[in-house]
């Protein structure tokens, strides 16, 4: 019996080489199981104790024509023995299951990096499907890279010679063979995946057997050193002490919405229309019925927000989630929630736009439309998640603001956060501070449906409460809730709605400054750029740059104290995956500072190197002038 534990494996004469961090990208056809392969590698690395970050990159089409470039699905992860913040700029290793996957991804591979290719998928027809005029394995495309050629189809067929599966089904085990190979190279244990396969195919023992065999065969192929020059090890990371789990953004967000409703003492009712990349929030919540979660899959985006508003009107915490196009459709109903001052959480998992845009690609371009994009003067607080591991916290925060201020709240996420995974240091549940809602149940002498408390919030009355019958609606109203076209009343109500949203700033912390208190440059970010900006600023600081960093989580209203912080720096660099939306906002809200936008809208996250270069460019430009 061959041992399957990396540590027990014979290592031969070649020494085991230690690495701090490795970036691997798995790429193949969208039917090749690359997301599963990536997720398994992630899971195993997390259980092993590495810090990690992932970037799934898949096509919008469920199954684009096999072997074509549009059908390429990728999964990149960085795992490390040190604290890391990003899935890595350029992969050290590219695993390409076919010519299309190779051609789409080779440009991002590090110079001198390793390419593992499935040579069985480079036949004439495969090259044609991938629109390759010549074979990239022979035409010089791969010059300067270390190419490891593996005839994966053949080896899988050999390994599974005794399996009762059809040849076609045998070939579907290719991804586990590949995974096994990479496990050997990076000294990962096989057990987590072997166990996962057993659970996954509980009732199909032949599939468990075949995939486990393929995984072991891949591992052993590396083990007997017929393919690689040696093995690497990425030791455990020294993470902050605590209990961890690996989590994806949408998954953590869903749990946060449940927690937020519980902390408010309300029933969560999530109404949504499926849309990429927000659908998995609906799916996650639908699976949480034992936690008292009610989900409604609505007939369209407008129905989804309207039902959520109806739920809040009824005394539950209404929630809805969508992506950009859905946000556009929900606009009028957001105005209704603002006008009737009902709590509501609206999740926007941003994706590249305009219109349908690029549904599976990342962008931060809904910022200004979230803050301002409704008819009339219609202010609403906007909170932005930065990473999978803070989605739980900020989902709770959105719920808190919604109920304490009787307002709809937009919770911004994006495709990078939604589908990215990282270790999450689990919160101590006793530290979660409840914010129980007090419904108004009795008519006091001064009761008015649109009266105000210290937060400028109106009372929340549930239908069914005797003696407090009243009507609400989207027409302008007096504090009595009766329709009013009185000019002074409309001025007063408009002012009140704005003052209330501005007042939310009193309840949020001033963002922490990372780096020196003052200097030449402050890098301000928001949303999913946090990891990249952290690493870039730390790199620039090590190289001697006078730069600090600050990350915004409450993007509307902006927190107090920014003006003072900005004034301690010569200028403020604002990198964003949009056309300078936060820069625009900061210039308007905090005039008098030099705001330098830096923007990228390729559907891909910034590279750390791009940010470092820009920091150094901005600093140099002002030194010479």
């Amino acid at each position, binding site marked *: 019996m061959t041992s399957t534990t990396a540590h027990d494996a014979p290592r031969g004469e070649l020494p085991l080489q230690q690495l701090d961090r490795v970036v691997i990208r798995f790429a193949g056809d969208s039917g090749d199981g690359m997301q599963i392969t990536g997720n398994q590698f992630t899971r195993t690395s*997390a259980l092993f104790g590495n810090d990690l970050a992932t970037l799934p990159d898949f096509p919008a089409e469920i199954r684009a024509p096999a072997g074509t470039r549009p059908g390429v699905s990728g999964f990149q992860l960085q795992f490390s023995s040190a604290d890391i913040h990003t899935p890595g700029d350029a992969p050290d290793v590219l695993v390409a299951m076919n010519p299309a996957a190779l051609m789409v991804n080779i440009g991002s591979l590090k110079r001198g990096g390793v390419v593992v290719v499935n040579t069985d998928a480079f036949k004439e027809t495969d090259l044609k499907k991938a629109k390759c005029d010549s074979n990239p394995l022979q035409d010089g495309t791969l010059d300067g890279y270390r190419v490891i050629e593996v005839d994966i189809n053949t080896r899988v067929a050999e390994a599974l010679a005794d399996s009762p599966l059809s040849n076609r089904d045998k070939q579907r085990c290719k991804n586990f063979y590949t995974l096994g190979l990479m496990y050997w190279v990076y000294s990962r244990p096989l057990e987590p995946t072997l166990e996962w396969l057993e659970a996954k195919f509980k009732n199909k023992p032949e599939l468990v057997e075949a995939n486990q065999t393929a995984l072991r065969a891949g591992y052993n192929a590396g083990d007997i050193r017929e393919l690689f020059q040696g093995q690497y090890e990425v030791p455990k990371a020294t993470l902050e002490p605590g209990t*961890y789990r690996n989590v994806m953004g949408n998954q953590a967000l869903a749990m946060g919405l449940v927690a937020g409703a519980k902390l408010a003492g309300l029933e969560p009712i999530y109404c949504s229309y499926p849309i990429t990349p927000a659908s998995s929030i609906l799916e996650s919540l639908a699976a949480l*019925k*034992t936690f008292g979660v009610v989900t409604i899959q609505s007939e369209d985006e407008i129905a989804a927000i309207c039902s959520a508003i*109806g739920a809040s009107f009824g005394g539950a915490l*209404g929630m809805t989630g969508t992506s950009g196009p859905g946000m556009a459709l929900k606009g009028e109903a957001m105005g209704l929630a603002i006008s009737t001052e009902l709590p509501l959480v609206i999740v926007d998992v941003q994706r590249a736009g305009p219109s349908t845009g690029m549904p599976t690609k990342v962008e931060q371009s809904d910022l200004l439309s979230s803050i301002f994009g409704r008819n009339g003067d219609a202010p609403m607080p906007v909170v932005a998640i930065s990473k999978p591991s803070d989605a739980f916290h900020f989902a709770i925060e959105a719920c808190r603001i919604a109920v304490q201020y009787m307002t709809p709240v937009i919770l911004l996420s994006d495709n990078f956060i939604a589908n990215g995974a990282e270790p999450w240091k689990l919160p101590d549940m006793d530290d979660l501070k409840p914010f129980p809602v007090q419904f108004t149940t009795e008519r006091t002498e001064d009761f008015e449906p649109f009266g105000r408390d210290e937060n400028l919030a109106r009372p929340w009355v549930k239908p069914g409460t005797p003696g407090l*019958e009243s009507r609400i609606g989207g027409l302008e109203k007096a504090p009595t809730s009766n329709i009013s076209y009185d000019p002074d009343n409309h001025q007063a109500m408009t002012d009140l709605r704005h003052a209330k949203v501005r007042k939310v700033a009193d309840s949020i912390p001033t963002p922490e400054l990372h780096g020196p208190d003052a200097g030449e440059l402050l890098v301000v970010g928001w949303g999913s750029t946090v990891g990249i900006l952290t690493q870039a600023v730390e790199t620039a600081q090590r190289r001697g740059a006078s730069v600090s960093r600050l990350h915004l989580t409450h993007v509307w209203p902006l927190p107090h104290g920014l003006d003072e912080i900005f004034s301690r720096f010569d200028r403020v660099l604002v990198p964003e995956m949009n056309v300078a939306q936060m820069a625009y906002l900061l210039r308007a809200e905090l005039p008098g500072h030099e705001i330098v936008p830096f923007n990228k809208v390729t559907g891909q996250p910034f590279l750390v190197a791009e940010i470092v270069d820009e920091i150094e460019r901005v600093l140099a430009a002002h030194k010479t002038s």
Partner: protein
Amino acid sequence: MTDIATPTRTKKDFASDQEVRWCPGCGDYAILNALQKYMADSGADPANTVFVSGIGCSSRFPYYMNTYGFHTIHGRAPAVATGLKVANPDLDVWIVTGDGDALSIGGNHLAHILRRNLDVNILLFNNEIYGLTKGQYSPTSPVGTRKKSTPMGSVDRPFEPAQFALGSQATFVARTIDQDQKHMAKTLEAAAAHRGTSFIEILQNCVIFNKDFYSETVDRKVRPDRTIDLAPGEPLVYGADRSKGLRFTLGGDTGFAVERCSADDAAAWQPQATSPAAAFLLAGMRDDPEMPVPIGVFRDVAAPIYETGVRAQVDDAIATKGAGDLKDLVYSGEIWTV
């Protein structure tokens, strides 16, 4: 059935303190009157009653009822009511809408609330015209309707609201007339007794933009001969002298059809019939000057109720697996300690 409650409230108790602002002579007054009276007579609890509306003349309705009310946005009242009923299935929810609100901008939501069979009552005021936007043709206006936006006449075929509802798998479909308080009261009662979505089309006069559009059928003088009341279990008989009847035929060029006959040959009306086909035929008779316009109950069948099913899944999950603890949720999956 529960005991008949002794009415302790009067019609006045259901009137809010707001001045009613429909045009003098508007059919909406008669409907408001009938509703307030029905609420008092049926012993309704104002605290437990919610009127939800969209946009349009009819949608001002909630402001005039001394109950809970939500005047929402154009066409979306069914969607708002869905969330409300799921949050609190015990509420007695009434949706007030018009032909434009329900069948143009809100057509999608109307179809879906009907197929879901939410336990609410929908009152669709059909005056075949846009009132609040000052007189454009609506999705129920006949072909050739000349209005400011259609100076040469409308070219699109109208919806028949009752057929739309039947096609959307409505479990209760009825039609009544604003001028007939007695019939309206009877229809409201039948609708309220039905569990699931009750859809009532109310032919309603817009005295400004479509005055007396229905007078050829509902005027007192012609009403007995031009309308037929669909009474459950009773023969389909009408006419001032009750001599005319309707029956169903199958075959020939018309396929399944309804035709006039003598009172003796009239078919008995069955709104509980499994098939909605006969109801669909009757609902389509409004355009045929040879046939009477049916009022009363087209369909009344039982089906599972949406909010009950949604909540039952949550209750069942908790009953079988136990109530989830937040900590167990967060600390689930593969966790490790550093």
